[in-house]
């Protein structure tokens, strides 16, 4: 299923999407592939596969630690793509990576390698729209959506432009800060999401800091999808039942 079809289906069912972020190669490559399957079985509507990086400046302690351990276990963008190529999932797979591993893979290989691995989208937290022009054409030639991020500090002009350029959906960062579960969502979040909705026609997925069914319920009206990441990475670390956890989170995306 494509990203667009996923959001259309969600809209027709009047429910918000649940995007699950999992670190590729954590704790091992095989385990990360099993965990993706478990999240899909639990009802994830979209999977974000994180690529470990030595210098994850947008990530908090949970994902930093998983990234580090994945690297120690031998993970790389290339190996994770190979792992994905051997699988088929019923939901869109989106790669979330810092720019340098992409540069190392080589611009000429990205389209083909991603397509072969069944990847439909790409999120690059350190590639703002001003720097993305040289990537958009070669990705769209391969049918891969380059998803732009929006932040509470983005001006209206930037939000409008981000909305125009982003493909598939807009990833709204819920707060000024790094990834990682927070007890409370930012109080300015509803106003930010409202502003984002007014300025872009694309679906909006909100992420960073979201970990509980209550938080998801409070966001259901304001966004088309929510992203949960660090909470799931933590669950994997603690050997929790990932499929069960995703089921609970997914239930919160449906209206009562």
């Amino acid at each position, binding site marked *: 299923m494509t990203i667009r079809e996923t959001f259309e289906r969600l809209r027709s069912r009047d429910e918000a999407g649940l995007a699950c972020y999992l670190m590729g190669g954590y704790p091992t490559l095989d385990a990360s592939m099993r965990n993706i399957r478990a999240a899909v079985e639990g009802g994830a509507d979209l999977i974000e596969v994180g690529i470990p990086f030595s210098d994850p400046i947008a990530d908090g302690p949970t994902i930093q630690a998983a990234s580090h351990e994945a690297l120690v276990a031998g993970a790389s963008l290339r190996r994770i793509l190979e792992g994905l190529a051997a699988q088929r999932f019923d939901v869109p797979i989106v790669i979330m990576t810092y720019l340098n591993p992409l540069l*190392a893979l080589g611009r000429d290989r990205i389209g083909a390698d991603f397509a072969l691995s069944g990847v439909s989208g790409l999120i690059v937290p350190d590639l703002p729209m001003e720097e993305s022009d040289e990537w958009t054409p070669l990705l769209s030639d391969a049918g891969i959506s380059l998803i732009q*991020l929006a932040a509470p500090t983005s001006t209206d002009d930037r939000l409008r432009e981000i909305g125009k350029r982003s493909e598939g959906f807009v990833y709204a960062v819920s707060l*000024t800060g*790094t990834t990682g579960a927070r007890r409370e969502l930012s109080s300015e979040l509803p106003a930010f999401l409202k502003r984002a909705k007014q300025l872009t026609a694309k679906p909006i997925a909100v992420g960073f800091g979201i970990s509980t069914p209550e938080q998801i319920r409070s966001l259901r009206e304001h966004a088309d999808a929510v992203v949960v990441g660090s909470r799931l990475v933590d669950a994997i670390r603690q050997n929790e039942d990932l499929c069960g956890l995703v089921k609970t989170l997914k239930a919160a995306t449906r209206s009562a």
Partner: protein
Amino acid sequence: MLATEPDKRGYFGAFGGRFVPETLMHALDELESAYREIRSDAAFAKRLSELQRDYVGRPTPIYQAARLTERLGGATLWLKREDLAHTGAHKINNALGQVLLAKQMGKQRIIAETGAGQHGVATATACALVGLKCQVYMGSEDCRRQRMNVLRMGLLGAEVIPVESGSKTLKDAINEAIRDWVTNVRTTHYVIGSVVGPHPYPLIVRDFQSVIGRETREQITARIGRLPDVVVACVGGGSNAIGIFHAFLNDAVKLIGVEAAGDGVDTPRHAATLAGGRVGVLHGAKSYVLQDADGQVTETHSVSAGLDYPGVGPEHSYLRDAGRVEYVSVTDREALAALKLMCEYEGIIPALEPSHAFAHVCKIAPQLGRDKVIVLNLCGRGDKDLEIVQGLV
């Protein structure tokens, strides 16, 4: 034609740009426009130059190192004495400029990263001067090996936050400072200490450091009636080097940047980015980066904490590829021997960082004629390094 200004998008040739999370993009726009404003503001320039004179002690002297010249037996060596600037290194030039800029922008809090601790000390000093709260990120390995500077920052009222991730050195301190900035961007200015980071930082830091080259040019011309033949400086991120090179870019002066070769550039333990790196993106800019085949940034080693960094300023990458500046490297062992030589022949204890540049001078000076003139940017004094040096020389 050599570009001396970045283009609209912050590129020097193919290098630079802004590769940061969207959260920071508006802040960088604001910083750029605030900087453009003060860059042509006479009142700001007056305030800065008065403080440079009365507080920092500028102009720093240029000194003819007669005994070393005689010992090396070739070109005449002059030292640009940035080690005599307040706080003991060139870092104060940039820290003071940026802290004044932040104050003017109405920021309430300053953060900085530091490697050897000199930039942290300089930023803490500038914050004490203008009355701003200051927190400094420093790798725990660097806290250990540059303990004196941790004590100095504390005394100056700054809080030092040890960073435990990665190799626990400068690169990791920058990561943590960026994470702080992403979180507190509305109230906080991040004083980057070198000519690295997203645009406009490489431009701002270079401009505030280029006072070194302007003074050098004037001073050496007054003393010898012409420009020098060679200017040599060490390069980690590259701020002191850009600072002294900039005034000479369009002259027939040979410019040499000296990187840290650690145990040797043919070993995995070095920090010579331009010698062993590939083009990549680290800390918000496109430049040469020491990295593995998968694009993971590699851990570096140098006896000098200030050069122990896997990246390099984008303008240096540009000047290297344009062929304008020659970049070489010097090992730990060579730098330590050079440090000892300068102590014994001139009564000056240089920091480990410029000891790298001086080690290269020791190689080239004997090969140049006695009519040739070399200027070495002596960018900092070595008091901070005594504990490291003690067991090694």
